[in-house]
Every structure is written in C-alpha cells, then in structure tokens.
C-alpha cells in the first residue's frame, strides 16, 4: 500500500521532538509494508498525547476513554475478526487507569496489537509522575523525587504468558516498524512497550539517555527462561541495559477465532435471526 493513502491533511500537534512522531511513522510504515487497505484497519486509543494518534492515520479509528482502549478494541475485533485492530496509548492510560484491562487482555488472547507509549511521565496533564516513573524522578506530583516504585509492565505480561511481548524504542523507527509489523502478523494478543522520550516533561530520560542503553536483543523469545531474564534486565541493571525486540512469544488460540467457531462465521456477516430455534428449545 502506498503510504500516501493513510496520510491525513492535518499535521500532528505534538511537541517538536516528541517520541510520538517516531511511533506514528513506524505504524504507517508497518501498515504500508503489510499492504492493508486503510478501510480494514481500526486504530483505537485512549486519552493522552499519544491518544491522538488515530487522527493522523487515515484508517478507521475510535478515540475512546482514558484507560479503556483494550476492551473497546476487543469488542471491535470479535465483532469483525477480518479487521486489523491496533490499540495505542500511554503509560498512564494503560498502566494506571486501565491496569485491570491489561491484566485481563492476556487471558482473552484476542488478536490485537497494543502499542504502549512509555515516556515515564504524564504529558497532556502537564508533568505529573506516571506509573513507570522511576523512583526518585522529580515531577509536579513529587517535586522532591517520586518515592514509590514503578510498575513493571514487561515482566508482568511475560509472567502472564501474553501471546507476544516486545519492547521498542521511538528513536529507532526502522526497528520499531518491523516490530509492529511482526506484532500485527502474529496471531494473538501482542504487546509492544515503546520507550519514548517526552521532551517537555521528562528531561532525564531523553534520546541521549536511551541511545546509550537500548540494544537489540537476540535471545530466543520462545524460551521462557531467557524471556524472563530479558524482561527483567532493565530493573536488574538499574536501567543500564534496556533490551528491545521480541522479548517473549507463544502460540495459543485466540478469542476472535473462538467467536467465529462458536457462531459459525464472522459475526458482522451473520444477519439471520434465530428466535424460532430458541423458542423450539424452550417448548
């Protein structure tokens, strides 16, 4: 697909240098490479700077509520499993407000791709601590330094045996777009934790900081022991080494295919009413 087909007339309204630009470009590149028709793609977002992503890709989209993008995306995918469904939102959206949904999405194993924009700070609400802010991070919430520990999304998802768990970096578009492409192609729930700088509110974890630390991992993601080690490496090394790439992967049955099996077809294509069959059973 020509990338021009999914360009929009509007220009993104993000701070110059924001990691969201790299993520946007990576998604577009992945979709173009996959040769998806724009009408067959739905991008679902929550609220936050990154939540505006659907506005800048001319596919179908749903800009929903803070933290609720996963159940919304799940509903879309099971209603029409032919669609490519991508959910995208920030760390506050997915790990604070929507934490419960992230815990459970791995159980449904619905075939969607979830890109979590992890900049370790709240952007749109102007600079409060986020669930991935590291201990000691100075913010509007904690001017003397965040006194509590961050959540660990990648180990959490690996321990849940999510179907595919990856880490990406907004500063490496080539690698990230490949990851997104692989995640879309993977049958099952795929999660990409994208490390991204927030140039306005997070002066600690900038491009330079990441550049020194991220590296592309070459471990076997289907080996749980190796995956577990890589998932924890940033925490075990005090963020000195940050692996990016596919961290963990498995193959298991998806909810959307289960729905098709149960109903005997794609739900959006079934229009027969089965009332009489049910009444027959009741009589």
């Amino acid at each position, binding site marked *: 697909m020509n990338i021009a087909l999914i360009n929009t007339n509007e220009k993104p309204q993000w701070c110059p240098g924001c990691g969201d630009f790299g993520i946007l470009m990576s998604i577009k590149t992945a979709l173009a490479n996959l040769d998806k028709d724009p009408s067959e793609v739905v991008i679902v977002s929550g609220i936050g700077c990154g939540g505006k992503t659907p506005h800048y890709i001319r596919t179908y989209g749903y800009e929903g509520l803070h933290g*609720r993008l996963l*159940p919304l995306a799940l*509903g879309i995918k099971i*209603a*029409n499993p032919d669609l490519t469904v991508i959910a995208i939102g920030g760390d506050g959206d997915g790990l604070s407000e929507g934490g419960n949904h992230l815990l459970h999405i791995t159980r449904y194993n619905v075939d969607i791709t979830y890109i979590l924009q992890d900049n370790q700070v709240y952007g749109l609400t102007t600079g409060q601590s986020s669930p991935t802010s590291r201990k000691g991070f100075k913010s509007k919430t904690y001017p003397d330094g965040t006194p509590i520990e961050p959540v660990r999304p990648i180990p959490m998802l690996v321990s849940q045996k999510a179907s595919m768990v990856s880490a990406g970096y907004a500063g490496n578009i080539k690698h990230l777009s490949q990851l997104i492409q692989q995640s879309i192609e993977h049958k099952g729930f795929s999660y990409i934790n994208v490390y991204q700088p927030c140039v306005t509110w997070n002066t600690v974890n900038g491009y330079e900081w990441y550049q020194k630390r991220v590296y592309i991992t070459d471990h076997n993601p289907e080996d749980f022991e190796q995956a577990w080690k890589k998932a924890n490496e940033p925490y075990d090394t005090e963020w000195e080494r940050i692996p990016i790439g596919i961290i963990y992967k498995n193959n298991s049955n998806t909810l959307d295919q289960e729905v098709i099996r149960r109903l005997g077809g794609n739900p959006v294509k079934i229009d027969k*009413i089965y009332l009489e*069959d049910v009444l027959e059973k009741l009589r």
Partner: protein
Amino acid sequence: MDVNIKVAALAGEGAFSIGNLLAKLFSKLGYNVIAYPEYPSLIKGGLNVIHIRFSDKQIYSPVATADILLSIGKDGYRYLKQWTEGIVIGDESVSNADLIINANELIQKHNLNPKVKNILLTSALLATLNYPKQYLIDIVNKMFGSKDKTILESNLKAVELGYQTTYRYINVKQIGLEKIVISGNEAFGLGAIAGGMRIASFYPMTPASSLFHFLINVRDKAKVYVIQAEDEIAAANIAIGANYAGVRAMTGTSGGGFALMTETVSMVGLAETPMVYFISQRVGPSTGMPTWTEQADLFQIWGAGQGDFPKIILAPGTVQEAYWYMGNAFNLAQKYQLPVFVLSDKFLSETYFSIDNFAKIEIEHGKVLYNHIDNVLPPGQRFLRYKYTEDGISEMPIPGIKNGMHIASSYEHMEDSFTTEDFNQRKMQVEKRNKKIDTILKNEQTLPKLYSKNSDKLLICWGSQILPILEVFDKIDFDVMHFNWIYPVNKLEIEKMIKKYEIIGFVENNSNQALYRFLRMFIDINADFSVLKYTGRPIFPHQLIKALNNLKDRNYKGIEILGEDFDIYELYTPWRLG
C-alpha cells in the same frame, strides 16, 4: 379457578426447582401461571420462597396469601403459616402440617437416592390437585433420562410414592394449549435475540445476571456470544466496540454496576455509537438489599454521563413488553445512534409468567452503512461521519467499508470527525445531536400506554408496577397510564392526555417518587396523591385496593406509604433461624 401455592425451604434445598417445575406443569394444562421467587443474598441458609399462582383467567401479579403451603423443613411453616389461608403440606419435620408426607421414611424404606425427596413432595402436592400423573412422568423422564438409569428409576419411584397421597384439594384439568413460561429476564433475552443482538458482555450482578445466564444457555441455537468481562467498565466497552463495528451488542447490570459504566454513556453520547444498556434495578443505596426489588434508579439512569446529549429510556412492565422493547432497543440505538436504556427491576426480571406469542421485530439499521460507499474519498480526507443533517442523524459506515474512514471520537469534533475547539462547530454539533430528540418524538411511539375506562381519575406508574395495578384494574374506578416509554418525553401530547382527569395519583415502588419528580421536569402535572412502597417487595394487589380506599376517605390527597402486613425481618435473616 385461581390457586396460590407457596413453596418454602432453606436456601440450597430446592424450593425454586420445585417452583419452576410446578409452573411448567400448570402451564402444560393451559393455565396462566406466575412464579415469583423471594430469597436472601446467600447460597446456603436463609429461607427461599417461591409464590406460584395459576388460573384459567388472565393474571398479572403474585398475591400475598396462599391456598397451599408446601414447607420443606419447619422454617417455611414457622414463618409462612400466617400467610396461608389454606392447607399446609410438609415433610415429617413439619409436625403441625395438615398433610404430612413421610418423605425421608419412604426414601429409606424403598432404598431410594435421598435427592428424590423434592420430586416425592412435588408428586404429593400434585396428587392433591388431581394433576395428571403422566405429565409429571414425562417431565421426569426428560429431566433424568440422559443420566444414570438408577437415578431415573429412583425418581419415577418417588413419583409413584408421592401419588399415593389420597387427600384431594381441587381437581385441575386440561383447559387449553400449553404456554411457554419465561422469566422477565428470559423475555428480555428473547427480545435481544429477536432484535439481532449477537454479542453480550456483562459482569455478574443480581438481578441482571440471569438474563446472561439465559443467553449462555441458548447461545448455540441463538448464535450469540456472551463474554464475562473483568469489570463493568470493560463489559460496556466491549459491547460498544462491537456496536461500532456494526454488530448489535449489549451489556447489562444493576445500579451499582452501572455506576461504573457511566463514563461510557457520555462517550457513546458524543461519539454517537449505538449502544444498549440493560439495567435491572434492585434495592439501594449502594449494595442495599441485593435480591429485593425497587424502582429508585431513574435519576441515576437519566443523569448518567457528563455533558449534554440525547438518550432513550424504556421501562417495560410485562413480559410481552420486555421482549418487545428489548428487541426494538437495538433498532432505536442504530436508527438514532445513541445510548438506549432498557430498565427492569428484580420483580420483573426474576418472576416467571406464561406467554403465548412473540411479535415479529423488523430489523432497522437506519443510517448505519453496511454496504459500499460510491463516492471515492479524496486523499487526506475523512468520511463526513458527523455531517449536519435535518434530522440530526448522519451516516455511519462500519469499519471494513471502503471510503468510510473516520474516527469515532470522545472529543468534540467537526463533520469529518477531527477534533475541534472551534466554538461555532461545537455549537452546531450540539444542535445536531439535540435534533435527534425531535426526530425521535416525530417518528416513534413515545406515548405512555393508556388503559381506559373513561374514568375521571388516573393512576400513573412505570415499569413493573403496572402488574399489581392490572390485577385490580376491574375493581378500581381509575384509568391507568403506564410509562413504558420514559424518555424523551412528548410534552404536548402527554399534557393533552392528562388534562381531562380530575384526580391524578402515582404508584411507585420507591420512596423518592422518581417518576413523578421526573415528569415534572418536562410536563405540567400536579399529582393529588402517591402510593409508595420501599420495603424491598413489590406492591401486592390487596395493598393497592386498601391504599386507594384509605385515600378516598381523604379526597385522594397525600401520600400513602405501604409496609408489609407483618414483620418479616426474621424470615430472611438466617442467623435468627434456629
């Protein structure tokens, strides 16, 4: 013939299984049947009672008294004797019963499985009614035929032993064709199926859950998929996602669960996504009394969601209406692209009624586009999803349709769905959405249902409380207006309808006069009186008659508050049973 039976046993001992079996059996003879269950929020212990009524005439409501009490264990007798005008049948523990069936002794003597006790007692009860034994045998064969042969034989032997009872209370007979007996929630479920609903997502909450249990039970026949979500917020969002993708979907809960769903109401209000919420009210506030009935959540539903946007609220009162309104809710949601609320309460949801006919529901998609769009979308542009129109409704292509790309957005937006903070666009979008109210009032049957006998006095009610009123309709000198359609309110037409009445009274199952206060926001109406009940039980027919007589003595002025005829506190408080 009009017979009332109460079956009582401690929770977990099978009173409801017996009640449902009896309801099915009486309906087989062509009788009209009602079966109303009452139980505390417990799995074991506490008393479960099911009130079964059957009649050759049209019946609408359970009544407080009983002609026959079947008490399994002594507690049913202890607490229900004072409500029983007729005979008491009990097992050997009910030493004061009129008819003692030595069920345990018989089971031991004939070496039967102890679990057949309830079938034995049911058989004894049916024998007193001279009920055709063969029908019971047929059902027992159906219930246990696929199981271990010894279980079936044990149950059939129990039927024989039960039928040795020689006491005869009355003689029932075949009076017509068999009817289907369904609960209110099953009627809502059938309506959803008839309305083309394909995906249902819920989080368990009494008294809404049994609708989803029913859907799960018939899912393969009905071709519906039911998901139990991680919480109510997810349940609502899953259904919204499906509706956005063009598949009719619903969620359901009670007031407490709906509190969590509320943020989604406002979202679909702005994004104009079709959505159906089923809400079965129970006793609040907060956790309240989970298994009892009330109609106090109208303002919660109407007020749900920040901001200003149209919605539709329906409150069917009978099983026929439950079926019909639920099915049409999916049409309304798609035609007007807004949230539709179908309200019930524990009383309607969990009570069983006989029904013999299901009207066909025509599927209408309105301006939801399922096919191709001819106009090619120029590069960089989106489909005008929120285009300004005369009727306030814009075309909504579902994902997968070429040239229909747009965003459903929880932000205010322009015609092409892009976010805007342009004041003029904002004003026009508000006006576009609000236009739907006029379109609905013009196109839909939004008036309350009037039961008229040309009286100059009017009773007004909503939802399930039409049932006790219809039960006494022939005995009271009132016309009755039932608000099964609640909102939007057709001000002009309703004011015309009520103008001729000298006296107007409301009957509500709450203490906050929800419907009366609600209607006063929209129409010029002054009630002379209200009959209110908020104990946790529905209004019983005899209470309504008494209340109207009391009111007559004071020129139909004031508020008549109903209680229960005696203190039943102990009845449902298990640690007091002993």
